[in-house]
């Protein structure tokens, strides 16, 4: 993890001011903050390790996306969408993988493919509903 993040752990009994500063009213909460100090991803509540790791990967994807490094972002999103398809973050990752691919290529057909994938694989997810606008 140290290869990808600078990890910081703060305890409610020791650094309550940090909880307030970042708006963390519940534990566990993890946030990914970029080098400019902007929050890019947040996980609230306990997750099993595999789900948690998928969320970290999703966070790295969002970080790259905001940096407009769409190829790298897509790689992170696809690794969750296809590599951890049972994880809770997978539908969101599939959605953003399609968006990153679209931003990278300017080819809107990638949005449609993402929408089809979400409709087939995660029909009840909010991400499938969000992507439904891309379906023809």
């Amino acid at each position, binding site marked *: *993890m*140290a*290869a*990808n*993040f*600078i*990890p*910081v*752990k*703060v*305890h*409610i*009994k*020791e*650094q309550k001011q*940090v*909880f307030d*500063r*970042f708006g*963390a009213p519940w*534990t*566990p*909460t*993890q*946030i*990914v*903050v*970029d*080098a*400019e*100090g902007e929050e*890019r991803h947040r996980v609230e509540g306990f997750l099993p*390790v595999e789900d948690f*790791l*998928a969320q*970290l*990967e999703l*966070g*790295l994807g969002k*970080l790259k996306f905001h940096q407009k490094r769409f190829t790298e972002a897509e790689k992170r999103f696809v*690794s*969750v969408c296809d*590599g*951890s398809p049972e994880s809770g973050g997978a539908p969101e990752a599939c959605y953003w993988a399609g968006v990153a691919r679209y931003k990278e290529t300017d080819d809107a057909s990638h949005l449609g493919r993402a929408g089809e994938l979400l409709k087939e694989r995660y029909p009840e997810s909010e991400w499938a509903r969000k992507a439904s606008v891309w379906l023809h």
Partner: protein
Amino acid sequence: MLVRRIKMTQIPWQKDVDAALEQARASGKPVLIDFSAAPA
């Protein structure tokens, strides 16, 4: 997935958020902040 192989107990957690943000600016790496209430 790069982070999959990491064991959570081996993470070199820091405690100083501002020092970590300074390191982030220098290195370009993001900061992961874990807000915890778990017994030490």
